[in-house]
């Protein structure tokens, strides 16, 4: 612990960081660090300064530091953010509170257990299932720019999980599939090369799927890549409704879920 309370100046800023060391303590604590303030520094720079110069025991995830890997998501003053995209100048001189992402179990310090999200990506089959398998000798699976455009926005997801931390429904009930998993399901459903829409339908058209969503829309607000998961979910609700009416009014009809 610091011998004296750090006070910020024009040249420094104070970070109040969530600490949890399960082998040392039962309950989490907060630790304050005074770090240099630079106009162009982000919270991740400050965390790396802490780890390199002040306290090497601080644990956190990061990688690309430029907003494409999705590793450095944390709560900054209660808002889910990529710490590589949260500039100190937007908070200075106020103290910056850094905590692990909401609604995920904490492994240590700012590191969360992301198993739930990974399982969900598997459940929704967040990968391409070609309509017809063909050998390499028959060439590529071709796609027009217009076909690409249909799913491109949803393909921008970097799996950073900020949307889960913003979602009050997920906060109350972790069995909800969640924004990113559903947006990724839509990304593949809308891909002209994919043929697994009906398989995914059983997962995303369930009660724990799209129907838990009440369109709060905060997932879209916090998404750093403008994926608009809320939009993906509402579009899925329309698909699910069309599919349901078709199955009720034309039960003998071919079961072929259209992805809008």
């Amino acid at each position, binding site marked *: 612990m610091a011998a004296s309370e750090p006070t910020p100046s024009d040249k420094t800023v104070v970070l109040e960081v969530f600490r949890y060391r399960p082998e040392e303590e039962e309950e989490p604590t907060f630790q304050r660090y005074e770090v240099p303030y630079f106009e162009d520094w982000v919270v991740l720079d400050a965390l790396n300064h802490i780890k390199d110069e002040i306290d090497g025991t601080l644990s956190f995830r990061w990688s690309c530091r430029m907003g494409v890997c999705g590793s450095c998501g944390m709560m900054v003053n*209660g*808002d889910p953010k990529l710490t590589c995209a949260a500039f100190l100048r937007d908070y200075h001189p106020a103290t910056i509170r850094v905590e692990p992402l909401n609604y995920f179990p904490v492994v240590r310090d700012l590191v969360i257990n992301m198993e739930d999200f990974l399982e969900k990506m598997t459940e929704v089959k967040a990968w391409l299932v070609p309509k017809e398998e063909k050998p390499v000798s028959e060439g590529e699976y071709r796609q027009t*720019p*217009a076909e*690409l*455009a*249909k799913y491109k926005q949803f393909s921008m997801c970097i799996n950073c999980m900020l949307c889960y931390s913003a979602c*009050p429904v997920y*906060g*109350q009930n972790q069995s909800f599939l969640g924004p990113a998993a559903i947006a990724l399901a839509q990304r593949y459903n809308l891909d002209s090369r994919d043929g697994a829409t009906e398989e995914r339908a059983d997962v995303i058209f369930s009660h724990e799927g799209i129907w838990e969503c*009440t*369109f*709060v*829309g*905060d997932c879209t*607000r916090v998404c750093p890549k403008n994926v*608009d998961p*809320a*939009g993906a979910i*509402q*579009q899925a*609700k*329309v698909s699910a409704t069309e599919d349901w009416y078709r199955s009720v009014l034309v039960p003998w009809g071919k079961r072929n879920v259209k992805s*809008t």
Partner: protein
Amino acid sequence: MPSTWWLKRKSYFMFMVRELTCLFVGGYALFLLILVSQLNDADGFAALLKNPLVIVLQVIALPMVLYHTVTWLNLTPKVLVIWRGESRVSPVLIAAAHYLAWLVVSVIILWIVSMYR
């Protein structure tokens, strides 16, 4: 998670306000139901419409119902995705078309009612 989670952030609060407009939507539907129960009773029908409490409640409900309309129309582009080649029809255009339709429909209804004054 506490049940007051929606008070913690502005985006959550505005969400809850939007959701709570359903009370006024349901309330006005209930009023219409009571009104049509008086369809064959000229005095009952008029008394209900002229009742000061009823008028006050409707004046309170009107801005809430307008908030429902505005939030609903603004969200139509999220549900109505129309593609023209490689680009989407502008979300602003989609919402604007709905606002125009709302205006037209309202004028038509007002005009029909005006024929019965």
